[in-house]
């Protein structure tokens, strides 16, 4: 009698193929999700080339240490610490140093109060 006949949606073969495909999809998606996949991958070689440009230029410079730059020595002797080379002088502190975060508003007020003393 037809009432006892098993009515299956899939055959055994279809079920095995289908579940195999699902498993493969899950694994591949998982790999991309885990390790990332950037559809727009750009060459980064240019960074190393520009860096090499700067290092080559450094090697070609006659003077390679900041404290030997004659104009640096001159600006300290003439202006920042008259008569000597003494970094973090009072004038250097005023012109070349700054403050951060919540100390800034007080610093701005100070600067406005002494606007034209700098030169």
């Amino acid at each position, binding site marked *: 009698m037809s009432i006892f006949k098993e009515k299956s949606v899939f055959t055994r073969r279809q079920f095995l193929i289908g579940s195999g495909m699902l498993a493969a999809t899950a694994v591949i998606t998982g790999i991309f999700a885990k390790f990332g996949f950037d559809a727009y991958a750009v060459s980064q070689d240019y960074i190393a080339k520009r*860096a090499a440009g*700067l290092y080559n230029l*450094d090697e070609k410079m006659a003077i390679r240490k*900041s404290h030997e730059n004659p104009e640096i020595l001159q600006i300290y002797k003439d202006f920042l610490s008259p008569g000597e080379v003494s970094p973090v002088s009072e004038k250097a502190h005023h012109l070349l140093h700054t403050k*951060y975060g919540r100390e800034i508003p007080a610093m701005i007020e100070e600067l406005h109060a002494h606007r034209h003393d700098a030169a």
Partner: protein
Amino acid sequence: MSTATLTDTEIIKITNKCKACDHCTSVCPTGAAKGLLGQKHYIDYKTCINCGQCLINCPFGAITDSSTVDQVNQALKDPGKTVIVQEAPAVRVALGEEFGLPIGTNVKGKMHAALRKLGFDKVYDTEFAADLTIMEEGTELIHRVFKMAGVAGFEDRGPLPQFTSCCPAWIKYAEDKYPAVLPHLSSAKSPQQMFGAIAKTYAAKKQGVNPADMVSVSVMPCTAKKYESERPEMIASGFKDVDYVITTRELASMIKDAGIDFANLPDEEADKLIGSSTGAATIFGVTGGVMEAALRTAYEVLSGESLDKVEFKAVRGMQPVREATVEIPVKDLGITLPVNVCIVTGTKYVDKVVEDVIAGRSNYHFIEVMNCPGGCINGGGQPIRHEMY
């Protein structure tokens, strides 16, 4: 006093060309580039540090930065103004790319010549200010080390480790996210702002120019430098220290618009007074460069000896976080001090280093931070390269 010259302080903008591809959200170091997949993206200006990494990496060229090129051109035409210009180290190895020269070609001399042709009255060099930064920041580091060693007279100095303060994107990131680390930041300004303060005081006096008639322009590989020049405290000279900042790309477009044959220009030197520089200043543009320049000076000042070999290769490289130890003999204290240094390139990688410092777990003395991967040479104002693999 209003000092703003940009029309607004929102420097990086995403235009309607946005295809919502999500690439900017993957390169943004702070997660400020936002948007759902398929919807036009936007920038959260509370956390944006203006680095421009999204701009140079956008596959559709949909991101732009605010420009002051028109104001610079106007100042150049005004006979009553003395317009001076400074150029950052990283500009000279990238500007040539816009004119078909190979990547990394040094066009320092042609760049100076082109700026003179554009009509700048004095062509100086940010590298001079980079040397000045090393003098100030290096001395500050030495003082902090003296404080740690218990030398009398240095009790009021800041704590160790000392962070570099040249990168305006890193500064804004530290101010926004880690206020507790601010005492560790070097109080030295960046070379750009040091140059601005010196130009309108020392240089103006030596040239006999009224600083009110001086327009100070800066060519930078960086979009965050535009923000830095607008910071309200950058008025140490009594005027706005740096009036306009243009990027490497904008300078290239100005040179093209003026019809200058860039590739065939002769090499010219920068103007004297605040235009000479050293190799130490040149390497400021690459990650590890500020560290290496500071070590060259700190070693010689502390030891009293002259270095035979000026390169500190241990601090070079392209890894996001690098560390090294340099043995420096300290003449005044009669000891050899192992100085632990750390170099971070990419703000994405700085959090752990900063959190260790705040928690007191860090044994570094000096930490260099640059926001852009590779340093300023890969800054948000540099020529855009889109060679796909």
